């Protein structure tokens, strides 16, 4: 198998209530240099799926079945120590809130250096050069390495997060709603940056969003989730232009249309009444 990531029949449930599946038989694949978007509303299980892949489930939840194969390694069989070697080094992650995911009392340069020092054992001049190179790659002047997070704008903080996540040149990047907290113009810049880095470094990107507009901009493949289950998967063009599942159609319909041709529509759950 040449797939970078192959998730099969993944199920996640609270330990206290193992029959209530929050992620229900989720299967998808991701290839190097490609972007798979998981689309869904709050509570659809999209973030939970990503956290499970990273091995970062909350202690009250557990993976009840399924396999997660990454570059031929079965991640579900790894110990916590082995998993920490994968996280940050082979899989990078970007979170939604650039304000809360950076440590306010450490310089951004230091925060980027942590994973380089930990995973690659870099230090001194070599480390400094690497940090400056990374900042340059994400479009921040290298001298800003000494800045604290509060001295940067929201977009710049998210660029720092991206620099941290790609520091060890991971084979895969998981981005969980990385632009939701940002303005549209900054969002467009960050999406363009992610697409460029992904191509240049030949990374696979697992991108989580609730916005089909964003999907249209960056996805190769799309996975639509609803209440813990996948309702539709396909190539981006196919899903956008010819959605098969009524939920996908409903979710697409509620994206406001900037041309003003289509009336504003709220999500219609009418199809739930019938067996889908």
């Amino acid at each position: 198998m040449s797939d970078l990531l192959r998730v099969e029949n993944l199920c996640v449930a609270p330990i206290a209530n193992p029959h209530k599946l929050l992620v229900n038989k989720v299967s998808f694949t991701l290839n190097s240099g490609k972007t798979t978007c998981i689309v869904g509303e709050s509570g659809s299980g999209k973030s939970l799926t990503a956290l499970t892949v990273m091995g970062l489930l909350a202690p009250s939840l557990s993976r009840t079945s399924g396999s997660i194969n990454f570059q031929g390694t079965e991640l579900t069989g790894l110990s916590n120590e082995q998993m920490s070697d994968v996280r940050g080094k082979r899989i990078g992650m970007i979170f939604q809130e650039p304000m809360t995911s950076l440590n306010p009392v450490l310089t951004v340069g230091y925060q980027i250096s942590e994973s380089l020092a930990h995973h690659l054992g870099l230090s001194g001049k070599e480390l400094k050069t690497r940090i400056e190179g990374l900042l340059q790659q994400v479009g921040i002047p290298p001298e800003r390495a000494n800045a604290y997070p509060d001295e940067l704008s929201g977009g710049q903080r998210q660029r720092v997060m991206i620099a941290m996540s790609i520091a060890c040149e991971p084979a895969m990047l998981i981005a969980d709603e990385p632009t939701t907290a940002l303005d549209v113009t900054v969002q467009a810049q960050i999406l363009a940056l992610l697409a460029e880095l992904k191509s240049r470094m030949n990374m696979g990107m697992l991108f989580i969003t609730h916005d089909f507009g964003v999907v249209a901009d960056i996805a190769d493949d799309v996975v639509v989730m609803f209440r813990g289950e996948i309702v539709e998967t396909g190539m981006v063009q196919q899903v956008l232009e010819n959605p098969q599942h009524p939920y996908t159609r409903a979710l697409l319909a509620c994206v406001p249309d900037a041309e003003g041709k289509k009336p504003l529509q709220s999500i219609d759950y009418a199809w739930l009444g019938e067996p889908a």
Partner: protein
Amino acid sequence: MSDIILSASHLTKTYRQRSGRFGFGRKLVKALDDVSINIKTGSTLAIVGESGSGKSTLARCLLQLLPLDAGTVQFQGQDLAALSGDALRAVRRHLQMVFQDPFASLNPRMKVGEIVGEGLLIHNLGDAQERTRKVLQMLERVGLSAADINKYPHEFSGGQRQRVGIARALVLEPKLVICDEPVSALDVSIQAQILLLLKELQQEMGLSYLFISHDLRIVRHMADEIAVMHDGKIVEQGEVESIYSSPQQAYTQNLLNSIPGRQRRTASLI
């Protein structure tokens, strides 16, 4: 000029911002730089711009929640800056605001019934029974139920909390409602529900809206007129159609180009 409900002219507001590493320095930031707007009765004016463009400062200055450095705000022919105390409070009943963050803008220790009814209490409208009736009616109108009156904000989802925020503003039967990014904290699917609710209520209650947003996809559906703000100035202003079809300023063009999904960024597709 009875068809203009609110008219603001030449508003200026300057902040003193701390600068330098330990904040010992000071620099002046012009949050509003000679801003003039008119809102027509029963219509929606959208203020569009990025973070830091001054759009939220504008909202706060219009409501006299922040003092202006210069300029006048006329609401239904009254100069708001000249009012104070009881007179200002009386006018504010007709000038309400719906806030961006439904998580931060509702007091977590108050029940929803108290939150929605507080305005009625402050403005001394009706007796206890009448107030309860109005609160219930408003909650039902925004899609919540009578049972929700005794719940606390944390028991609701983001979309439902924003419905509470709307009920809180509209129970006073205001004339003008300032909506400051009312849906930017919500999922796309929930956004549409809230926007449709706002539009329906506008029709029913004859409301005028000042709608603040950075998302031009939404503004297209909500606004009659648009004012584009950048660095505290209004750079372009006009009817919705003309702004979208023929933007005059490069800055507006840039905002339009940033709309997600508008032009498939082909880099990853090739």
